[in-house]
């Protein structure tokens, strides 16, 4: 298990955002987390990243209890819905950030950083724009920068919180295919939060459905589509924008 | 408190706070703080230089006199609040009485410590009118004519303006054989002619001189002469009334503070110096009327002769005058609230 949550609960005041969630992701796996707004998807990612502390339960990363680790020590790559790029830094500097802030002893040399960043930018196909500022990029380009920045620290786990949520349908589609390819290339354990069940089914090895702070169902896309045991789940998947397209995709899988 | 101390130390280190006085005897140079009122800035600047020379000659010690000026009442308040004055030279005895009573840094009988009720030089209340005196203002009773606009400051806030008020009152009292009712009526009519009451004496001078408001400015003679000279000898004339009040700005050593600074001796010498011929000459130059008999003889002629009454004679001293006329709900409050109607 690359990431394991054991009966993790998180409350905001009276409100229970995560309700004893138990959930694991295998090494190199890409799991999609779907569910309605407010069901606790972001909260779960933030707990794994260490940006929020759970009230109860344990988070393990590669078998190690993450409790004593701060967000900076977990070797997590986090991609935010609205990119959260450093607006005053160039694309290059954004990607280099995670390397530059390392303690002196572990910090790569200037030339090592340059070549590492160049490689990453090539990987996300943005090497031509390395001197641009975030405000001078399209949404899709910004999100790729965010991804490259998260990958730069060689994370053990990649957490993507609705990475394509703010993009238009066409770009989304391109990017999700591209993400799948990228994942096949680097094979880093990934949790992808999305609203879009089609997207989930298309890119993920497994899909987990959240509902009111719990994991309602988890399985491969095909399993989930077949099984409509859970009435809520049925409704959710039926709600998805293009059921025919997702069905096709699943046949194909 | 730690922050305060740090800032205090920092400013000290940067040489901005010369500790006033300090352990003066051991030091080469001694510093005095003279807390005074507004119209004496120019006067004391000159006197301080003269005294420093004199003190150096007499004792070999350098003395620097720092000056602080403001409205007389506000300055008294500052001393009460802890402004470390070695000497106070204010516009009226009442303000020093307040220091004695509330600040307790000088004795209640301070006024007996120096000659002439601790008043080294005096002034009187006079009128400034526009050049050529177009309204034909000659005496106090012209000020209550309906066609005359009078400029004077608020006696509640300005020490100088209190003298003006009492001057008018005293004139009316003498004119009407001591009738309080007549005096009250006269003063009420006078303040009905005042379009703006500035808070301070310099403020009303500015109103009259620079903003061109009013036909006559009631002011201390020295202030009147100075402003006319500075601002336009060709624009204003000075009128001396038939009788006026003797304005007595007193001086005192702020004893507790001076003792703490170790400056009692030099502070007293400084105030005594004000009575010397040299200082009296400087005072005369700044249009203050000397009180020393010899100086009077010498400079008396340069000031117009005018019969003067004093606070003690007509009002039974400052404490009483203050209470009757200027305290909240006193006569000024009563007549001014009706004057507007």
């Amino acid at each position, binding site marked *: 298990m690359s990431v394991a949550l054991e009966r993790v609960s998180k409350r905001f005041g009276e409100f229970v955002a995560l309700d004893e969630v138990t959930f694991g992701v295998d090494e190199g796996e890409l799991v999609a987390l779907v569910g309605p707004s407010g069901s606790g998807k972001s909260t779960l990612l933030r707990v794994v990243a260490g940006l929020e502390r759970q009230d109860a339960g344990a988070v393990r990363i590669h078998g190690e209890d993450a409790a004593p680790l701060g967000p900076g020590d977990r070797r997590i790559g986090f991609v935010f819905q609205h990119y959260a790029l450093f607006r005053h830094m160039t694309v290059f500097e954004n990607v280099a950030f995670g390397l530059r802030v*390392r303690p002196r002893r572990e910090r790569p040399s200037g030339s090592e950083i340059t070549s590492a960043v160049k490689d990453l930018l090539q990987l996300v196909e943005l090497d031509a724009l390395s001197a641009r500022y975030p405000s001078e990029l399209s949404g899709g380009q910004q999100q790729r920068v965010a991804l490259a920045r998260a990958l730069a620290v060689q994370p053990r786990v990649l957490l993507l919180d609705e990475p394509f949520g703010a993009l238009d349908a066409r770009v989304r589609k391109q990017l999700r295919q591209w993400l799948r390819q990228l994942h096949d290339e680097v094979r880093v354990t990934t949790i992808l939060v999305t609203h879009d069940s089609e997207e989930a089914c298309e890119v993920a090895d497994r899909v987990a459905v959240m509902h009111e702070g719990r994991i309602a169902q988890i399985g491969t896309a095909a399993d989930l589509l077949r099984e409509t045991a859970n009435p809520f789940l049925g409704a959710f998947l039926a709600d998805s924008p293009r059921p025919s397209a997702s069905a096709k995709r699943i046949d194909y899988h | 408190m730690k922050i305060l101390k740090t800032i205090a130390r920092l400013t000290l280190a940067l040489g901005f706070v010369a500790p006033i006085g300090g352990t003066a005897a051991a030091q080469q140079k001694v510093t005095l703080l003279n807390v005074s009122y507004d119209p004496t800035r120019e006067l004391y600047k000159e006197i301080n230089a003269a005294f420093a020379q004199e003190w150096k000659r007499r004792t070999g010690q350098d003395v620097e006199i720092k000056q602080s000026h403001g409205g007389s009442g506000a300055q008294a308040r500052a001393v009460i609040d802890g*402004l470390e004055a070695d000497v106070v030279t204010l516009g009226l005895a009442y303000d020093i009485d307040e220091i004695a009573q509330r600040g307790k840094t000088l004795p209640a009988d301070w006024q007996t410590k120096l000659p002439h009720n601790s008043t080294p030089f005096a002034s009187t209340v006079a009128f400034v009118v526009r050049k050529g005196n177009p309204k034909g203002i000659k005496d106090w009773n012209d000020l209550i004519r309906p066609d005359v606009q009078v400029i004077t400051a608020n006696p509640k806030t300005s020490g100088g303006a209190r003298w003006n008020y009492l001057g008018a009152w005293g004139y009316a009292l003498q004119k009407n054989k001591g009738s309080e009712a007549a005096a009250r009526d006269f003063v009420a009519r006078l303040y009905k002619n005042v379009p703006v009451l500035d808070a301070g004496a310099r403020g009303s001078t500015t109103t009259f001189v620079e903003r061109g408001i009013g036909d006559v400015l009631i002011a201390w003679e020295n202030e009147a002469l100075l402003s006319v000279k500075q601002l336009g000898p060709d624009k204003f004339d000075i009128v001396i009334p038939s009788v006026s009040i003797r304005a007595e700005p007193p001086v005192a050593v702020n004893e507790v503070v001076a003792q703490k600074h170790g400056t009692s001796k030099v502070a007293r010498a400084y105030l005594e110096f004000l009575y010397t011929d040299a200082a009296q000459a400087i005072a005369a130059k700044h249009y203050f009327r000397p009180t020393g008999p010899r100086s009077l003889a010498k400079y008396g002629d340069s000031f117009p002769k005018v019969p003067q009454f004093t606070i003690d004679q007509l009002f039974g001293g400052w404490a009483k005058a203050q209470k009757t006329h200027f305290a909240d709900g006193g006569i000024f409050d009563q007549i001014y609230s009706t004057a507007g109607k």
Partner: protein
Amino acid sequence: MSTTIAPPAARHGIPPGLRAARRTATAATGESAIARWILIGIALAYLFLFLGLPLFVVFEEALKKGVGAYFTALRDAELLHALRLTLLVAGIAVPLNVVFGISAAWAITKGKVRGHALLVALADLPLAVSPVIAGLTFMLLFGMQGWFGPWLRAHDIQIAFTVTAVVLATIFVTLPFVARELIPLMEEQGVTEEEAAVTLGASGWQMFRRVTLPNIRWGLLYGVVLCNARAMGEFGAVSVVSGRIRGQTTTLPLHIEILYNEYDFTAAFAASSLLAMLAVVTLAAKHLLERSHHAARARLIQEQQEKQP
């Protein structure tokens, strides 16, 4: 001095890309050329009347008796002391309020501190009370008849009527300026960039230094300029707490009033011109900083574009 706080976005450097967008937006709102010229005319006339003219008069009056008299007036020891004191006061008050402003804005917008509404209200307090009242309150605390006065006296610490008092009063009066600038700015920016930095392994200080500070720098600069202008120009509070000891606790604005009341107009306006020049220098420094930043950025983009085929 009354201060209006404009929304931050209106002032802080607009990226070049946005500028073009603005231009088309103006065209799109479709006001006629005449209307635009009238508006510009009104704005210019207003600026001239309320800024240009007074500034002109200051220098006019200062130089009335000739350049020689002007410089003689400026060489006066008390005036020079007042100038030095003014710089010292600003030099202490501004950095302290920068530290306070950043901490307060951080606590309020990002630190999720409880009761931050109260903190905001408190930080605004000095704007709401008249400086004279602030000065009198200060006396109530530190004056001999006040709360701490007798205790301070007993421990031989003099606060009221010293340079320390002038500095403290100025700090109080200028306290809101940096915080006021930063709070809306930081609120708008949210915490995600900081969270991103933390997940990438940045320490608290690195996050602040490399992410937060650069993001707020223009707002901060503006706050510093406002704070500094007020620190150097403060009159009311300083007038009360300083005791007006000439050549000791009189700052430039106090000294100007003294000179004016002494009918020494040349010196008063000469000193005023100093104060005006200090303001101009501050603004020029701000402008230069901004410009060099934008120029550096433009250069970088240009280089980038040249490299591309």
